């Protein structure tokens, strides 16, 4: 059996809730017993809205915040012991949601891309060549190396961010809503690029998004997150055509679509004051003291 690139087992994360005087009064479970795995070269989608815990999961995989309990195995190795180490960084990299803020405005493209090269001790002489190579991979001309972020369009910035993430040749790329800030035509090109890169470099993707239409076209498997728990998982086509969980149905019914065929496959449920509370409504209920849902 081939070992999956990423295995997440019973992952939990809770944040302490403190009174204004710093006394511990309880905890919020941001991520609750989440398990999934991604095979080599596959794209796994995590779908969810705000408060679903999808960003917290990404941060834990990146070693930016430790899990409360549970394991994250990268290539079979528990990152609990190597979290944040150079070895960990070489295996997994991330592309952030907003290319406008994930590139330092005061640093040129080549300066941004060389950060990980520098950290990995690539000799100075080889860096310029590697920058050109990486820019070429994301289909940007080598002359862009000396540009600053404000001289790039949104799509170009995101390409630079992808090049930077690929600099250490990671196996797994975490994509945190990588196209939600982009125009739809630009989004199509970036996704196309990611698909190509995945094939060429044998990359594995964890794709985090609230855009179900995009997920349907990009991810082979999908997990639907609702308030920190995975409520439904499976092949994307199966989950989308036959949603089992009420929340998945609500999500699908909410997607604005552009064709009659899509409209036909959307579940028909009342959107306003329906029986299924949206994540936002449920969070509001909890905040009001409703306790567990």
């Amino acid at each position: 059996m081939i070992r999956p690139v990423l295995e997440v087992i019973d992952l939990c994360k809770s944040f302490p809730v403190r009174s204004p005087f710093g006394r511990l009064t309880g905890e919020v479970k941001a991520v609750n017993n989440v398990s999934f795995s991604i095979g080599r070269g596959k794209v796994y989608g995590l779908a969810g809205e705000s408060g679903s815990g999808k960003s917290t999961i990404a941060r834990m995989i990146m070693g930016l915040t430790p899990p409360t309990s549970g394991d994250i195995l990268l290539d079979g190795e528990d990152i609990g012991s190597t979290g944040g180490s150079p070895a960990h960084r070489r295996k997994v990299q991330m592309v952030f949601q907003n290319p406008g803020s994930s590139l330092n405005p005061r640093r040129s493209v080549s300066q941004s891309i060389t950060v990980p090269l520098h950290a990995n001790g690539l000799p100075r002489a080889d860096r310029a060549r590697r920058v050109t190579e990486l820019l070429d991979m994301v289909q940007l001309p080598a002359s862009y190396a000396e540009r600053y972020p404000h001289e790039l369009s949104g799509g170009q910035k995101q390409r630079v961010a992808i090049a930077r993430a690929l600099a250490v040749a990671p196996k797994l790329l975490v994509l945190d809503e990588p196209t939600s800030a982009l125009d739809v035509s630009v989004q199509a090109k970036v996704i196309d690029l990611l698909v190509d890169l995945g094939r060429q470099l044998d990359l594995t993707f964890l794709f985090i998004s609230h855009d179900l239409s995009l997920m349907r076209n990009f991810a082979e498997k999908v997990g639907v997150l609702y308030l920190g728990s995975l409520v439904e998982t499976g092949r994307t086509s199966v989950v989308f055509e036959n949603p089992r969980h009420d929340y998945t149905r609500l999500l699908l019914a909410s997607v604005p679509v552009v064709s009659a065929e899509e409209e036909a496959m959307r579940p028909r449920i009342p959107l306003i004051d329906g029986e299924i509370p949206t994540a936002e409504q449920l969070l509001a209920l909890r905040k009001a003291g409703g306790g567990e849902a």
Partner: protein
Amino acid sequence: MSSALLSVRDLHVDFTTYNQTHKVLKGINLDIPPHSQIALVGESGSGKTVTMKAIMGLLRQPLARITAGEMYYDGRDLLTMPDKERVALRGTAMSMIFQDPMTSLNPVFTIGDQMRTILKYADRRLGRTRSARERKVRVLEVLGQVRMRDPERVFQSYPIMLSGGMRQRVLIAMALLSEPKLLIADEPGTALDVTTQAQILKLMKDLVEERGLALLMITHNLGVVRETCSYVYVMNKGVVVEHGSTADLFAAPQEDYTKALIAAVPRLTGETRFGTVEAMR
């Protein structure tokens, strides 16, 4: 189409920055008949927001300049009317729904205070008088219209106590306060979750139909257009590329740009070929 509630004729707008002049709008024609739901759709840089600002009279002078064109609201010329009349129209006859529910409300006043103040000034501009008591009644009435379950509680709440969806509804209620004939919505619900956005769009659509308002929706999201509007103008680089009824335009787009734009939208049915999307420059 002289019967249009709002009509824009051959509108040209230039922007001047760093001694360079950019032609941002190059002859926009637009008609909004009464009781219609019109969408203005385009990607960033298409000029849709500038068009909206020109209609609302919110362009920053002298950075932006209307170099040619005419705009009529209800047969009255918007560009030549005195400033005072123009200001009186804004927020009363044509009213705008702001897009960001997090920053469009002042955090230190209650919803009720903010809405009463808006109503007071709208009344003043229109030369109407209303007592404080009557104003509160009107505010509660409008909060009920946007389907708040407990208008009295919302009235007394501070923005921080409401969820994003509730705040967006408050913003819609604010736009409805002085019974406008034309609602202008700029990227409504973009800052919200999908499920909440769907509720807001449904609500807007219902309100516009029930109350016989005209709606001008500015958006980049083609799905949102199809859900809420009956007629659509597609903009690119400062010109209207194509316009037509929503059903026709989505089923059989005529222009290459529109075709490419629609093809780039990922489909829920999973048949999108991203690689075939043509460059749109």
